């Protein structure tokens, strides 16, 4: 069973022929080779597969590719513009907010979605926005500091 499904991926319109009941994550990684989003829990608990769909962060493991039809999908690959990292990506580097790195694409996508919706987040807003992204290495302190800095540099 295959359907042709069209959506916008990181700003570019694409059409992909795939089983319609596959998850968006499966199609992104296995067919389109967009491997920023990761599959860890496959239950919507870890956030490693987070993508921005129509302006809102969602777990791409819990969305059917059919449900992404005509939508606007952004993965970590789509955050940099013309080779320039966005404010969140830069701040993560500045703060060394990365250890093994596995959760980071999801973390950066969630944080970028937050700043798109709320340019002046409080620490509580940041913690809430990242509460669906688990990191088993860093202890979150540097991650939160990085997002605070990114919010400031974005406004400057």
């Amino acid at each position, binding site marked *: 069973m295959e359907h042709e499904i069209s959506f916008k991926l990181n700003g570019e319109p694409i059409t992909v022929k795939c089983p*319609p009941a596959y998850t968006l994550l499966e199609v992104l990684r296995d067919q389109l080779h967009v491997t920023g989003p990761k599959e860890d829990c496959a239950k*919507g608990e870890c956030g490693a597969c987070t993508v921005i769909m129509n302006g809102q962060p969602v*777990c791409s493991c819990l969305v059917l590719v059919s449900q992404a039809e005509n939508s606007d999908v952004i993965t970590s690959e789509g955050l940099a513009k013309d080779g320039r990292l966005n404010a969140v990506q830069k701040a993560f580097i500045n703060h060394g907010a990365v250890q093994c790195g596995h959760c980071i694409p999801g973390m950066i996508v969630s944080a970028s979605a937050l700043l798109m919706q709320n340019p002046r987040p409080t620490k509580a807003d940041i913690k*809430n926005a990242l509460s669906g992204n688990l990191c088993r290495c860093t202890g979150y302190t540097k991650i939160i500091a990085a997002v605070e800095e990114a919010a400031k540099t974005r406004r400057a």
Partner: protein
Amino acid sequence: MMRSEIDVLSPRTLEEALTLLQQHQNDIRIIAGGSDIIIQLRDGVVKTEKLLNILAVKDLRFIKEKEGRIHIGALSTYTEIIKSQHVKRHGWILLEAAKQIGAIQLQNSATIGGNLGNASPAADSLPPLYALEATIVTRNQSDRREIPIERFFTGYRKTALKSDELIEEIYFDGLTRNDAGAYLKLGLRKANAISIVDVAVILRGKHRGSYSDVRVALGAVAPTIVRAHSCEQALIGKRLTEKSLQEAAQLASQDASPITDIRGSAEYRRKVLSSLVYQALHKAVLGN
């Protein structure tokens, strides 16, 4: 059936959805936000030949107030519920529950209709809807049914929804300023936690410091959400003090029949239940 062989039908209007549902009712399952059924499909708990993907049916996406009644379309996400001024003013216990469901990603995709259809006894939106005495509106091609929430859930993960029906909306009489209400959830952590126990309370009909209408709904302690009738009776018309709230809260476990699972033992649930009911009543009536 392998997931690669499942067909997905994606209607754009309610009429189209109901026609497809009628045609394929024996081998189709409805998918809304997908946050429960996709996991069930992958685990093999749910098997189906076709999925009816209703996510693009805009007719089912609304939150409105009409003559004091709040109507919530089945496809409203928890994020939409959290942002709704109607829910904030007239159904704040549902907002409190919505904020504690999963995390942002899940709140953005999970829908209230999906939460009802999935019929988990640990679904966080359900105790508030039981306390609000909500009505579920279902539709098939020819009929529209209005089902009180207590009759909609008929057993563990069982609903009164027929195979050719879908959930159109949920409505309830809005709370007013004179009403008291609270929702509390006990999970293993703050985000992305399935409830061990959760409690919603509403007290209405305030007169000289007591209430004539008390509703206490308990989640994750029985095959469906249950109302704690003995606890409610003990509070109706009574002067509410810390002591009377505490005594009434002790009665709540009479209405519970908890099981032991990975999140907590039956014994623990029973013990913690009265404490959580007391805290919820205290928060609603006397403040934190």
